[in-house]
């Protein structure tokens, strides 16, 4: 039996009504191990205007690179306070902020490890289906061999890297279009 996946439709401007009960901007409770980080930024449209009605969804592994999901054979050893899910709306000025832990390297193809990264799903009025991107960490040696990052042309890779502003504090803007357009993935 083979069915076709249901067609996406935009999340629209009023998603807060349905999706706010599960807004999560602090991904790690106090019991979760790992260095804390804060990521803030702004979502900007093709005219450079802030997008006040965007929604980010984060999915990430814990500090030891384990996903809280049965497909990860290490999942049973995870701290019960860790889910790895975040859901953050932008404010009136298009800004967002979330705190989490540094993820560990996750298993990739073959014996390779992927560089530490966060998955980001992006939805907003005007987007007919979700966009997906990844956040990587600057200065991480494993970035050089990461199978996904290597598929991105070198001149655009920077759009996926956090910009450090202080210890554990990072900036990361999302540009929908233009010279600094963020790299989005399809899989």
């Amino acid at each position, binding site marked *: 039996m083979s069915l076709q996946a249901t067609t996406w439709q935009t999340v629209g401007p009023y*998603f807060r009504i349905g999706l706010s009960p599960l807004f999560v901007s602090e991904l790690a409770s106090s019991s979760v191990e790992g260095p804390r980080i804060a990521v803030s930024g702004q979502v900007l449209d093709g005219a450079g205007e802030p997008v006040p009605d965007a929604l980010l969804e984060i999915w990430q592994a814990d500090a030891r690179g384990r996903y809280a999901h049965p497909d990860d054979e290490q999942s049973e050893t995870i701290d019960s306070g860790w889910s790895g899910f975040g859901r953050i709306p932008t404010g009136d000025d298009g800004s967002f902020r979330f705190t989490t832990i540094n993820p560990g390297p996750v298993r990739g193809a073959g014996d390779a490890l992927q560089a530490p990264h966060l998955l980001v799903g992006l939805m907003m009025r005007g987007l007919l*289906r979700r966009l*997906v991107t990844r956040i990587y960490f600057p200065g991480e040696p494993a970035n050089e061999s990461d199978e996904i990052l290597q598929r991105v042309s070198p001149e655009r890779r920077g759009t996926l890297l956090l910009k450090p502003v202080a210890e554990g504090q990072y900036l990361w803007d999302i540009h929908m279009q233009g010279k600094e357009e963020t790299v989005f993935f399809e899989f």
Partner: protein
Amino acid sequence: MSVVPYRSPYPGTQPEYLHRPYVSSIRRAPAQPPVKIPQTLSEVTGPRFDATEIAAGGFDLTRQHKGEPLGERIVVSGRVLDENGCPVPHTLVEVWQANAAGRYFHIRDQHHAPLDPNFTGQGQMLTDERGYYRFVTIRPGEYPWGNHYNAWRPAHIHFSLFGPAFATRLVTQMYFPGDPLLPFDPIFNCTADEKAKNRLISQLDWETTIPQEALGYRFDIVLRGREATPFENPNRL
């Protein structure tokens, strides 16, 4: 390690990011094509939610306030399957909608139709072990919007589903059969494939209709399914 990937969409069954008749997409759709990547453990895992994380009465949008909301009561239900025809059990379904007058309980909705103090328009539920969901609500009203001159959205309910993986995420809108506004709506019409588009229209359902009380509408949902086995497609990671 190798993972069993989720299937790619059938051509034409998902919207392009840029759809000029939907004006908001012009500045917000990326100009560059997306970079194609293989699925890894990151994409085939995803968040899971259980009953402790959702509101107990989330399946009845007509009983969230002191009084009863205005409007025509309806029951919406359906089954969540994957592309292989397997039920998707215990997955989170979130819904939101306008009230009977076509007004959202949201600060940015300035349409001068009345708010209903007894209706928020927010629902949450899990599918059961066979993939079924069901909720009680009122039929949402149509409403005007600013996309173009005299633009009106057909009546619709927003749906958000997760499925088993980050890759299976779905946000969509359910429409009502026979709505005369459907041919004019750039959001409903954003998908090339006619059949795929029409699957967003629910069906009147006598099975779930409650006599003397509420008409039933059926809306089945299909999430991405996995490739049959990792061996069928050895070149994918």
